[in-house]
């Protein structure tokens, strides 16, 4: 049992490193071995957790604490897996449509999942001042891996892969604004249930609330009590 767990983490580590390096042997591996889906699930889950951790200012501002905070991170990891499942399906459809290649959905999903590897560093988005910039760098890195895996899977060349991902992006937007709306509503409801907050307070709201006359006078009155 312990040996299996240790082996799993070894594969997970290698999967992350190879994906970060855009190493084709990682793509070969996940295409060849269907059971590599567990490694890919691990990568996507960690990316989801790290990304929310990087953007956890929204949790803190809404005063989500303790167990709910950690539960929110886990739920975001799971939501990430579902989101990339859908994203993988869309890329699969777009790729099949564009290139007429006979690939399986499973291998496409696993390859697309590898593209989330850079987001494991999403925790660094927390860094003041340069965090948002780092977040953009990670997204570009992830995008480059995605282009690379599509190129690899469909043997399409860079521009073909770019077209495929672009088409996928359009499809994703179309679906999100049509049949995807009820699904998004369910997702938001789950999110609210988990965090126990409507999650609508932003840093800007706090600023406005406390810098208005009402907020400031409360501060002053408080001092005189």
């Amino acid at each position: 049992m312990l040996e299996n767990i240790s082996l799993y983490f070894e594969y997970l580590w290698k999967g992350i490193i190879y994906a970060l390096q855009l190493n084709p042997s990682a793509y070969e591996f996940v295409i060849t071995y269907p059971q590599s889906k567990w490694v890919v699930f691990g990568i996507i889950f960690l990316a989801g957790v790290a990304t929310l951790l990087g953007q956890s200012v929204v949790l803190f501002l809404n005063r989500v604490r303790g167990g709910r905070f950690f539960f929110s991170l886990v739920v975001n990891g799971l939501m990430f897996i579902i989101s990339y499942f859908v994203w993988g399906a869309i890329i699969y459809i777009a790729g099949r449509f564009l290139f007429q290649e006979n690939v399986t959905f499973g291998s496409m999903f696993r390859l697309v999942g590898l593209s989330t590897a850079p987001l494991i560093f999403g925790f660094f988005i927390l860094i003041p001042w340069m965090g948002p910039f780092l977040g953009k760098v990670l997204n570009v890195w992830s995008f480059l891996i995605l282009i690379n895996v599509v190129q690899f899977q469909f043997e399409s060349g860079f521009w073909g892969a770019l077209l495929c991902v672009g088409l996928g992006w359009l499809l994703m937007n179309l679906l999100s604004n049509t049949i995807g709306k009820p699904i998004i509503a369910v997702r938001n409801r789950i999110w609210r249930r988990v965090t126990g907050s409507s999650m609508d307070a932003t840093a800007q709201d706090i600023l406005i609330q406390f810098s208005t006359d009402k907020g400031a006078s409360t501060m002053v009155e408080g001092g005189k009590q």
Partner: protein
Amino acid sequence: MITLLILGAVLLLFAAAALAPLESLSWWAGGGATPVEKATLTEEEIAKEAAIPDADFYLLYLSGIGAISGTSIPDEEYPFLEGLAKKLPGGKVITDIYPYSVTNNGLTSNRMFSGVWRQIEKMRLKNPNSVMALIVNLRNVFQLFVSADRRYGPVYNLGIANETYRGLLRNGYRPESGRPIVILGWSGGGQIAIGSVTYLAALPGPIYVISVGGMLSDDVGFDKVDHLWHLYGTADPVQALGGVFFAGRWPILPQSPWNEAMANGKIDIMCLGPYSHNGKGNYFDMNEKLPNDKRQRSYGEKTLDTIAYILTQQDVLKQPLPLSNVDKPVDVSHFIDPPPLLVGNATDDLPSAPVEASTTVPTPGEADRDN
């Protein structure tokens, strides 16, 4: 091996930076920002406050990134602060605010790693240039960026404003008196001063900021401040970094709070001379004499004179020293911004005779108030 060590050090630095906002965010998430609770004084404090007569104005000093707590700041600043109190008769100088903690909790106070910080403080007392002392600077510079970050600033600056307000009350400030508040921010304290103004500006009476070599961002506090004076030295590249790091200070963004405040004449940028940020010839140096100064003053004395001059001109300092003792500094606010990363000895740039200020500084009554 060396590559791995460098990579490890970079990752450690990134991790430390990523953890920097958590202190203020946890404070907020824990309900610590409830204004009524945070700004409430104890009975003892209220009794003490009632016994203190009103000052003409209240000047809060926010130290630079070398500060360990509200009462432990770099040695060079103490003679300067003593001089400040002497130069500003009628004013109340408050120095016990630690601007790098939303709860005014110094690093050596009640904290998880306070023991470590105490050791570092001891080392610094023995050797001010100790490498370990840089850890304090690094920790505090992260807090400076937390204050300047639009995601965290509203929370961080609220905490500092609350503690600043408490500090004012402890020292006899009564909001109904409408007495002017001046925040003197040195280096990182300059940014935190303008950040806290966002909230403090709602108090009656004018609020001013004097930044001494401050690394200022394009904080939303510029919308609220009555006036800001930024004093800088030509051999101080650190203060110029604010104009490089923060895009809102670039001229290509005219709608940013900084650029709007500049356009509205709320900011005066004043060159003091060949001052450096640290070491010999810094803003607080009370020993080293200025080159070519008619009165043979030290660097620190000229900084004090300039502050006194600003406050006299602003009619904040009601009992000014004779003006003959005060040099008028060069006002270069019409030059938009100090040149970024300007270094070197600018002795030749010093005026041989006082130069009149080129812009009209608003009096408290004329100053715009945005609330």
